[in-house]
């Protein structure tokens, strides 16, 4: 069976300060990736990466970006992502930022599974950074909720011996 295999790169947007960025859309990240590949690898790079390149997922609150590329061009993409130095904000200026690559997966589902596990690990460190008591209690509640394991209902008298 012949089909195009892709790789999904999960990256975290790091800005200078913790702001809620709602002007960063999929289109903005796509344009930034394409521009940096043009700068580093020229027209040849653009020709290599454009089929198969797309931004599959972006979350403004957790600042997660998932970029897809063909399997053959993974190295091109992962080596070019650290060169992205700024993203355009909606008003015509440039926001200095950095895309930190967290994980490379073979499918969107694999990346999502890893992301859930990663968020579970990150929550306790965020708890340490909480300043107010109300924030701390809310953090503790969300950690508690995310680490609960669903209990199987115990069936009494099911097996007859």
């Amino acid at each position: 069976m012949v089909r195009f295999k892709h790789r999904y790169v999960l990256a975290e947007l790091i800005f200078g300060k913790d702001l809620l960025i709602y002007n960063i859309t999929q289109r903005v990240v796509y344009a930034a990736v394409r521009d940096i590949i043009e700068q580093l690898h020229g027209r040849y790079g653009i020709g290599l990466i454009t089929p198969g390149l797309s931004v599959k997922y972006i979350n403004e609150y957790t600042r997660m970006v998932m970029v897809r590329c063909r399997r053959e061009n993974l190295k091109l993409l992962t080596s070019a992502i650290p060169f992205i130095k700024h993203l355009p904000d909606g008003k015509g200026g440039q926001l200095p930022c950095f895309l930190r690559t967290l994980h490379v997966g073979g499918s969107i589902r694999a990346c999502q599974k890893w992301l859930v596990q990663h968020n579970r690990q990150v929550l306790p460190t965020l708890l340490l950074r909480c300043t107010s008591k109300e924030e701390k209690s809310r953090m503790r509640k969300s950690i508690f909720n995310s680490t609960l394991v669903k209990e199987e209902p115990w069936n009494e008298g099911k097996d007859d011996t």
Partner: protein
Amino acid sequence: MKRIVSKGDAPYYYLKVLLEFEDKTMAVDVLTFRTVIMKAMMSMYGEVGAAVQIDILKYEDKTISAILRVAGSNMVKLWGALTMLSYYDEKPCAFRVHQVSPFLMAFAASSRQLLLHTE
């Protein structure tokens, strides 16, 4: 009998090129020539391509021709980039690649420059 398999990448490849401008009265010195080559590699292969080591072994001012040397693995890139260059500084120009060889000796006598006397 020993069989030697060549992978195809010679250590260096040499190119005999000529830069032709539409304006025949253009004077190009060797530094400008190197910049033209760099711009060609930059537009085609980006900054990574422009960083490829290309040496000008010999340069002729009058004819704007040169003998270039490039690592074997980069030969195809250089040749392609030179082919795709059509403008420098808004002046139309073109690279004519006369001869390409992994051996510099091949440029000593080229059958292209042979003058055949038919009498």
